[in-house]
């Protein structure tokens, strides 16, 4: 949504965002580049079963409290009739 009051995030918010990402990678022991490699491989596997847009496959590491979760999402095409 368009927000006329939107301002640049404070350095405090930037630090928080960066830490969440860095710690998710650190805790999983997974470099950001490796994660992208994994995304490509997972997308290739999915595409062997379902025709998907490989570039639309997303991969994320999320961390809440001390639990870390790997999330892969891919839009699936609706089968044409």
């Amino acid at each position, binding site marked *: 949504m368009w927000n006329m009051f939107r301002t640049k995030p404070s350095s405090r918010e930037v630090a928080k965002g960066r830490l969440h990402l860095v*710690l998710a990678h650190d805790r999983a022991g997974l470099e950001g580049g490796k994660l992208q490699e994994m995304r490509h491989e997972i997308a290739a596997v999915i595409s062997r079963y379902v025709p998907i847009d490989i570039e639309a496959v997303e991969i994320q590491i999320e961390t809440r409290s001390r639990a870390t979760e790997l999330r892969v999402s891919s839009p699936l095409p609706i089968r044409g009739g």
Partner: protein
Amino acid sequence: MGRAIVITSGKGGVGKTTTTCNLGAAIAQLGMTVVLIDADIGLRNLDVVMGLENRIVYHVVDVVQGKCTAQKALIKDRRLENLWLLPASQTDDKDALTPDDMRKLVGELKATYDYVLIDCPAGIEQGFKNAIAGADEALVVATPEVSSIRDADRVVGLLAAQDIPTRLIVNRISAQMVKKGDMLSQADVIEILALELVGAVPLDEHVVASTNKGTPAVLEGKSAAAREFARVAKRLVGQETEPVGETSGGWFSRLGRALGLSPASAA
């Protein structure tokens, strides 16, 4: 039987030694007997921060190697009746000690003294492993900065792997900077590290001055940092029930309630 607490952080320069010095002095002021161990072999500093550098005769490596007893190596602080320092060796390296040596030494000291505080070296290698070996619990010191918190998180993981209960001290917080949005708040740090907070020490120039003199800030009077170190000491020994204060308010009260603490008053 005493309690052994390791003060650690991963990153260097965040205030481990200052925290060890002040908590040690503050717990001693409460009437408990306290031994401080400098576990930073080769880069000792707790002696100068305490102002006891001119009285060292023996050190922790001498004790472990059987050259003298622990009692003989302990330096008694003359300002406080019940505070002692076991200094590190400046000439050996981290390999001069093993985790087993430390477990044995700390166990021996715990039999005589109420509290054994271990000042851990920076890093996560041999020196860290030695320092945590004999500890019943850990205090992780972090400043509200990305690098410090990242390193603290690594250390928290390593402590959890050893089943060492761990709590957090956020050091050098500036309420004004938090308010301006230029510093992570203590609530931010708690949220990210998912640890119980035991102290939030304000950025305070008195600490620099007391370190210059080699006098623990808690012995110097009522600076903001000294007051908080004294409160942390009370929390550690179970004398303080008041929750840790907040620098920004709002969010923290909700977190506090979620953790079962009563809402903190905004400082």
